[in-house]
């Protein structure tokens, strides 16, 4: 297993290297003068010259690349043009919001998706199966941002049940502790004796979680179903049944653990994609995370910020894939015991 993981780690480095290179090229090869584009038409020559110097744009491309690499390796992502803040700082501030949303969306997608997948596999070719799989197909065909807007329209505008965006009721004058608002809500409940922060955090999480989680949910349900169907045909399931193991146990222990292998891969992949999909969802729900920040930075032509955000999310994506790979080999004794 160690060998397997080391192999994966070896792939990690060129991948991150590729990401950084691509992101570097994004500015270097962009048509026109990046400094001018970033500062806009009204900037004067002096400001532009200063930014060029700051970004090293006046040096030859190779040298720029070397500089950029050495900075990124030292985790120095530069300063945001729009705010003048350190980009690493901006990311650190926003990351909890993104990860909190992605986390709940993923739990929602995994739990519901796997349940639906297993159910339709054991009820194969019944109306339960057709409805679930039809729904899942609709789920994967939907644009996330649109789903978000429709949810807002129905639950916030028409029914007036849930907030349209943000993370916390703004009238609460709430100062975050960990920046994970659900945790903060619980902490404040203990400290101040009122569950209102927790309640508000949950209310704000609900719609974005559903919006962000629906596509992975549908994909997980489809994968679980087909994986389950395949596993249920295997001889060892017959063996378990022939030994009198109860059907529930056969399905939820003997079959599911095997069916889990491809599902784990999909879950990991979806979790990674979720972070990039967060650009759309966070934008729709005014969720103050990295995705929305990248969106705003794109609009503001704050290239260093966009670069930093993309490097960060890609790194995270790659790391999640690595984690999933390790988890995969833990669940699969054939790899674990190699």
């Amino acid at each position, binding site marked *: 297993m160690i060998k397997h993981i080391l192999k994966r780690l070896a792939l990690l480095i060129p991948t991150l290297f590729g990401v950084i290179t691509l992101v570097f090229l994004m500015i270097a090869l962009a048509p026109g003068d990046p400094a001018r584009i970033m500062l806009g038409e009204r900037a004067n020559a002096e400001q532009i010259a200063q930014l060029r110097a700051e970004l090293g744009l006046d040096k030859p491309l190779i040298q720029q690349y070397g500089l950029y690499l050495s900075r990124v390796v030292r985790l120095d992502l530069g300063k945001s043009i729009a705010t003048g803040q350190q980009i690493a700082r901006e990311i650190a501030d926003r990351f909890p919001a993104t990860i909190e949303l992605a986390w709940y969306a993923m739990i929602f997608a995994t739990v519901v998706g796997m349940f639906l997948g297993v159910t339709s596999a054991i009820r194969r070719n019944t109306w339960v199966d057709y409805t679930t799989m039809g729904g899942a197909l609709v789920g994967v065909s939907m644009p996330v941002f649109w789903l978000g807007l429709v949810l807002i329209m129905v639950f916030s505008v028409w029914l007036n049940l849930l907030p349209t965006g943000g993370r916390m009721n703004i009238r609460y004058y709430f100062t975050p502790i960990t920046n994970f608002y659900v945790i903060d809500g619980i902490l404040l409940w203990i400290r101040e004796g009122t569950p209102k922060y927790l309640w508000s955090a949950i209310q704000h999480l609900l719609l974005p979680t559903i919006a962000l989680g629906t596509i992975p949910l549908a994909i997980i349900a489809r994968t679980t179903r087909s994986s389950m169907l395949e596993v249920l045909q295997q001889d*060892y399931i*017959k*063996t378990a049944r*022939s030994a009198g193991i109860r059907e529930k146990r056969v399905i939820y222990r003997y079959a599911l653990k*095997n069916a889990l292998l491809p599902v784990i891969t999909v879950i990991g992949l979806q979790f990674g994609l979720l972070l990039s999909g967060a650009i759309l969802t966070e934008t729709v729900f005014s969720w103050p995370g990295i995705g929305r920040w990248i969106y705003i930075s794109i609009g503001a032509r704050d290239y260093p910020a966009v670069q930093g955000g993309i490097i960060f999310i890609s790194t995270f994506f790659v790391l999640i894939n690595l984690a999933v790979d390790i988890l995969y080999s833990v669940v699969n004794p054939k790899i674990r015991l190699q």
Partner: protein
Amino acid sequence: MAEKKEILLSIQNLSFSFDTQRGVVNAVRDISLDIRKGETLTLVGESGCGKSVTAHAINQLNPMPPGKVDHGKIMFRGTDLLTLKRHEIEKLRGTQISMIFQEPMTALNPVFTVGAQIADVFMTHQHMTKQEAMERTIDLFKLVKIPAPERRVNSYPHQLSGGMRQRAMIAMALASPEPGLMIADEPTTALDVTIQAQILDLLNDLKHKIEMSILLITHDMGVVAEMADRVVVMYAGRKVEEADVFSIFETPRHPYTLGLLNSLPSNTKYKNARRLEAITGTVPDMRTIGAGCPFENRCAYASEKCGQEFPTETVLGESHSVWCHNYHMVKEG
């Protein structure tokens, strides 16, 4: 065999079909057989003739749907197994009726240790702690002669050899509180010859030790000779001959049985018998099969009648019956 023991399992006129997308497969048609206490009955026939479907019908292991019982009864200790609900049959599985499968490579769950899988059977049927179950499992491993059992229970299937896995399967089938019926569906087909002999010895040994009945499925007449008390020969879903093992080898009366014996390499007795087309022809499509004898298209003795109706039983002796219009010709063969 002095006195006849009581009947443990009795399949009566079982017909079983699969409703597939490409048509109805009549996998088993009008099969009857009895298994007595402590007896080994072998079910022989070539691949696809419905042996497994018959065996799996006993403890409801055929997938239903698409599978369906069209007709028949399976009596076991006074109840018709086919009428049992799922939770009722689940109680019999692994307690009174246990099973060993053909492919030791795929019949054990790859993500659990063999010990855990067997211990789970103990814990399902008998109130035991995990520890007790594991100890019993180790005992069973000793019984089926798995070396270093304390270590082996913690192995995953892929860490064991084919023979070892099959022994583990047998151990699992023995994890029952009382000896009853063991269904062994080609338990040695996937193993090489020496291991095969060991496993068969083990089964024979166990049979005497704990007085269980065995329904042994095989398409290897060598295995039949080694193991069987009685033999049922199947062809394309039909029973074509039934006899004690002695009669099958000495006086086979169905052309197909003769063909099977011919395929035994070591058997010189049948060398000069008329060579059957059984070797060249193929099993008919189970979906389009007609009312006649399914063996007709490959049979060297076929007459016009054979294509029209399936023969009725001809009783040849106390324990020998054949279903063939022209069985008397085979005699001369």
